[in-house]
């Protein structure tokens, strides 16, 4: 199936579900309180875009969440990739760090909130840190795994061409794992993005994640749904951006 056909089918599916959802809401087949119809979400979106939510403009909520997530993700990449590379390249070092990483990684990040507050307070540091932790752990594990799967023949080819030690690492192993690294980064970004809600439960009064939680406690399901649409759409767009970056930086991905 070609790309444009897939896209059209996907579009039709979204349109179909949206229509069915709207009809279900209009005919009170579904209680609008439980699931507000798309038209109500659009109205809410227009209201919030005009008046803001709880004194903050909608775009500022989004900008704040993006700044937190992207800041944390950038830091996680800067820390996680070198650590993962080191763990993958030096098995001894990997063996030391591995138990800690594997212990922390599956931990629900909500459980860390009390500790993070005690250690780092209730400012931006704690929020960014929570996203950072979940993204970085996933990046470390993925990067280390990528390094350990580099084919032996590729490494031998590099050594035979005179690449040893750091040069082997820099000119053979690193470019070799680049496609895998992008897969890891995409996955980790998804994980970091889902931690946004947990992060914005720490003493926030702005951010899309906070908006969803706060609106939920007042049964503002329309705002909750809008927040979910914004979170999902933004996450999707950022993933597409990463795919674009991968195409540019590692055009051979999946082809060699």
């Amino acid at each position, binding site marked *: 199936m070609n790309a444009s056909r897939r896209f059209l089918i996907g579009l039709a599916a979204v349109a179909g579900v949206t229509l069915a959802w709207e009809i*279900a809401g209009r005919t009170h087949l579904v209680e609008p309180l439980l699931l507000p119809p798309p038209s109500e979400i659009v109205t809410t979106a227009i209201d919030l875009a005009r008046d803001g939510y709880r004194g903050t403009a909608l775009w500022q909520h989004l900008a704040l969440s993006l700044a937190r997530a992207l800041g944390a993700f950038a830091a996680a990449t800067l820390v996680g990739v070198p650590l993962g590379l080191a763990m993958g390249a030096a098995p001894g070092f990997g063996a030391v760090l591995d138990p800690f990483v594997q212990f922390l990684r599956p931990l629900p990040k909500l459980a860390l909130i009390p500790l993070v507050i005690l250690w780092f307070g209730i400012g931006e540091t704690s929020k960014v840190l929570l996203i950072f932790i979940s993204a970085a752990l996933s990046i470390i594990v993925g990067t280390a795994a990528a390094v350990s799967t580099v084919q032996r023949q590729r490494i031998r080819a590099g050594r035979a061409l005179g690449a040893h030690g750091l040069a082997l690492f820099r000119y053979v192993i690193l470019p070799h794992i680049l496609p895998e690294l992008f897969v890891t980064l995409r996955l980790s970004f998804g994980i970091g993005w889902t931690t946004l809600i947990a992060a914005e439960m720490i003493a926030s009064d702005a951010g899309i994640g906070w908006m969803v939680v706060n609106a939920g406690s007042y049964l503002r399901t329309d705002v909750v749904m809008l927040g979910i649409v914004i979170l999902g759409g933004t996450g999707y767009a950022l993933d597409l951006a990463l795919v674009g970056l991968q195409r540019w930086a590692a055009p051979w991905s999946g082809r060699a």
Partner: protein
Amino acid sequence: MTTYIRAGRPGRRDVLRLGLGAGLLSLTAARSRAQTTTKPDVVRIGYLTAARAWVVGKSDGSFDKALGVKVEWVPFPSGGPALSLLAAKQIDFAIFGNTPIVAGLSRKLPIQILGSPEIVATSERLVAKAGITTLRDLEGKRIAVAPSSTMAFALEALIRINKLDASKIKRLPLSQPDTIAAWKRGDIDATYINGPFWAELLADGGQQLLVSEQLQPSGVFVWNSAVVRSEFAEQFPETVVAWLQTVQAQFDRYRSDPEGVSRILAKDFGAPFEAVRNTLSGLRYPTFQDQLGPKYWGDGPVAAKDAPLIKALGDAAAFLAETGEIKRDDVPASFVPAVNYALLRRAFPS
């Protein structure tokens, strides 16, 4: 009897299936099947995960006995989740704060108010770090308060009443356990907080500036209401009457033996006895009889328009609309229809 189960149980699944046509159809089918029977199979009572006097009836089966049906107890951490549980039809009764109840009513959540058996007096307090001695000193400071709580409402009210500069006071939404951590780290200067948490802060050198009761002369009431799902009240009015009488019986029991009830609840909640006793004594417990009078809800629908608590509900709604938590257009013109005077009268004839 099984018919009610069918009507009630799809609740959780409703939420999951939303968006799927099949789920929608089964929901409507189940709904039309729900017809009046005298008693439900099971009654689900929501309660706050904090010691409350009426919950003493949970451990000894008082409610099961009085209602003559199986009772399930469903805990919730605060008013927000209680609204979700009611919307998803996972609980039939609950007692929680007036602020979330106003939010739910504005969202047309089908619930009815059954009086206000708990009025906050000294259980919620404004505590500040040493050196902050007057309310005026709060300007330029950071105050933690649990989001969407009665404390958040009371804090805004006290700022308004005392004409403090709201823009100079940084309000930090924090859960109460997190507030303790932030206090210890020095991240906050003050907090409006519930018992037993304030006891810990006072012991840590905190300064008490205000208790909620002091706001009552200015017309600011903070209380917990009993609510029932409207659908349930229509189907099983007798069960509602029995439930109300049982709740009152628990409060009577507390009045005659506060130490004993506190001891039972302390055990049940795994909390220190002292903390429970202090928390419970920080609330006032007007009887349902008393509530049906000019001091609280008024006699009945006709006379209720100017009753203090009806007015207070309107104030709370105005406050929520002001802050943007609810839509101004959603606020009901009157909260009188939200109160089920008929069942209250039936349970407690004058």
